[in-house]
């Protein structure tokens, strides 16, 4: 009998051990799939952050980084195999995030923002800078629910050659009247006032310009396709500036405004063929190789889009991280998103120049970035958001409606009235198909 009891106890002990072991093993064994776009910041930062997350939480990370992340993800996602966390940006040609917004396929991050960051005792929402979680990019349905976590941000503005301005004794314009004056002065010296890499770069520029003309109210009117917005006084000012700016744009620009030759347009600012171009802080890294070939003095300068009734504005461009609604390990994915805002992760990202919208991030800035990111301290206001999401309309999308026709406007093959007509017609269709 005693032997039997001992045997029974032994079996019970082994079984309980096995069960406990099994439970703890399954918690440790969770592997989340993280997919991140590889940009100028490189892919090593993501490997480092994933390793730090594993060390902190014990949740394993299977990381995928790729320059064309959409090509890697689209096929499996159509078959229902979703990664748990995706880091990408809106406004890319493949429009993956936009498609998921249209398909209602993102997981709401309300709970994620309320999570305590792993390894810290601060909530995620307390760490993210104001305005980043309630704009119409991350809360696309207009119901105040955040679906994307704001990631690396970059102030966008007009970039120029500081040395040229110093040499000629020119002031950087803060209003559009000063801008045109400068344009005439530069033209006498054979320098064009303006160029742009591709027409797609007009997004950040136009968003800032709308704010500089009529403040956030006018910006919202245009980006929610309000009826009569383009016919309003502010709308007419916007069209007039776009028209005049097209005539001040370097004539070679549209012929080089494609994915293959856009750096030639960027080079025009460095070689003093054009004064300004709209761009983001990544430009310094992108054009670093061209510095050695320059024969003239050069140093990057950046200014906000000049005022036209309101203050100068600089658009704040940012990437986003999100959880697909079809993700397998939502709870662990939320932990990962929360961890992205930890001091450890922020430091890793900042070391590669990727700045997150975290309060106090300015202390981590280095080099030219100190100057660029201080744009908001120097009198420029921050513009944020984008065009409101709308359902599928055959043949109509934001870029080909508002931005790419700029190429034709500069080339002189369409007039500003043609542009206004197209913008108004398409805006009406977008208004009828608004999501949310």
């Amino acid at each position, binding site marked *: 009998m005693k032997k039997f009891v001992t045997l029974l106890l032994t079996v019970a002990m082994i079984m309980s051990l096995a069960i406990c072991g099994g439970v703890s093993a399954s918690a440790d064994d969770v592997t989340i799939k993280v997919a991140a776009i590889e940009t100028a910041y490189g892919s090593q930062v993501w490997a480092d952050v994933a390793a730090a997350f594993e060390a902190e939480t014990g949740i394993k990370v299977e990381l995928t980084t790729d320059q064309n992340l959409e090509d890697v993800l689209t096929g499996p996602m159509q078959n229902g195999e979703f990664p748990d966390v995706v880091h990408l940006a809106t406004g890319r040609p493949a*429009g993956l995030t936009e*498609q998921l917004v249209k398909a209602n396929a993102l997981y709401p991050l309300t709970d994620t923002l309320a999570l305590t960051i792993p390894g810290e005792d601060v909530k995620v929402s307390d760490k993210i800078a104001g305005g980043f979680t309630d704009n119409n990019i991350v809360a696309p349905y207009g119901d105040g629910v955040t679906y994307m976590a704001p990631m690396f941000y970059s102030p966008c503005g007009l970039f120029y050659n500081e040395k040229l301005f110093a040499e000629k004794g020119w002031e950087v314009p803060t209003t559009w009247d000063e801008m045109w004056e400068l344009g005439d002065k530069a033209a006498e010296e054979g320098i064009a006032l303006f160029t742009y890499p591709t*027409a797609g770069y007009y997004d950040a520029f136009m968003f800032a310009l709308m704010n500089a003309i009529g403040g956030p109210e006018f910006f919202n009117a245009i980006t929610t396709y309000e009826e009569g917005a383009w016919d309003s006084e502010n709308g007419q000012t916007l069209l007039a500036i776009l028209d005049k700016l097209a005539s001040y744009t370097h004539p070679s620009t549209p*012929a080089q405004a494609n994915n293959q030759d856009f750096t030639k347009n960027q080079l025009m600012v460095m070689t003093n063929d054009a004064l300004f171009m709209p761009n983001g802080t990544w430009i310094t890294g992108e054009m670093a190789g061209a510095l050695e070939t320059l024969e003239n003095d050069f140093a990057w300068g950046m200014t906000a889009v000049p005022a036209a009734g309101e203050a100068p504005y600089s658009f704040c461009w940012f990437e986003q991280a999100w959880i697909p609604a079809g993700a397998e390990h939502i709870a662990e994915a939320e932990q990962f998103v929360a961890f992205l805002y930890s001091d450890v992760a922020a430091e890793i990202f900042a070391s590669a120049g990727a700045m997150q919208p975290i309060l106090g991030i300015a202390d981590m800035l280095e080099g030219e970035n100190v100057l660029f990111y201080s744009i908001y301290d120097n009198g420029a206001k921050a513009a944020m958001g984008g065009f409101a999401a709308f359902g*599928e309309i*055959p043949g109509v999308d934001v870029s080909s409606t508002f931005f790419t026709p700029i190429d*034709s406007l500069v080339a002189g*093959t369409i007039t500003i009235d043609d542009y206004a007509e197209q913008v108004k017609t398409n805006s009406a269709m977008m208004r009828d198909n608004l999501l949310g």
Partner: protein
Amino acid sequence: MKSNFRRTSFICLCVIPAVILFAIFMVAPTFNVFRLSLYQRSTFNPNEVFIGMKNFQMLMKDATFIRSMQNMLLLIVMVTVFTMATALVFAGILTREKIRGQSFFRVVFYIPNILSVVVISGIFSAIYDIDRGLLNSILNLFGAEGVLWKGEKHVIMSLVIAMVWQAIGYYMVMYMASMSAVPGSLYESAEIDGAERVTQFFQITIPLIWTNIRTTLTFFIISTINMAFLFVSAMTSGGPNNASNVALLYMYNQKNLGGGYGYAMAIGVVIFLVSFGLSALVNKVTERDILEY
């Protein structure tokens, strides 16, 4: 009777794997393209809503689609005409005339064909450069102003030049193969009759390789539709402002940005029918009695 049955079943057995593969990978997807073109369906939302011919009605009103179809047809015509003319002339010269370094030229002409489109677009980006490009430098030498090769006015011509440059070698080799099969005695007797080189080319060479020319015409149509997508994606991204957009690129972009899968498939159906119709038309128009020698 029995051996006939065995023979038939053996043939069936041999053919079945190919038929199955063909059905799964060719027939079914093509059928699906036609089916989806009647539906509204976004990329990540599996819900399909039947909308009949609405996608096609929208297409007829879509100015960018019409422009991209026009560009596609323009490229087909121009690339075919220029490539065929030059490839035929070069093939004629290289087979009939005795030139030094014949095989060297053959290799040189063929090289562009083995280069990747990305490399070719890189080469032409340098050739078309506005300030330091090869073409504008030559123009400047003669006092002419530089041309915006990738600007709205000239972008299609720039694509044609690159595509012709790439295709000549391939078709030249094809024409050379059939030209060398033409018996030399025909040319000799023509020469005795007093026919010049040009007359010989048009009266003997062209009629005798006509079957080959007809085959390559179908190749031209199909390959230009596909190659235009690659060249435009790599060289101009369809710009400036859709001036160089072609139907396949527009279809690809609509899948992502505009009308979703249904609309993109409707574009696919139109491209399919146009290329099919065009090939049939060309085939019919070029029908001749086959000359034997």
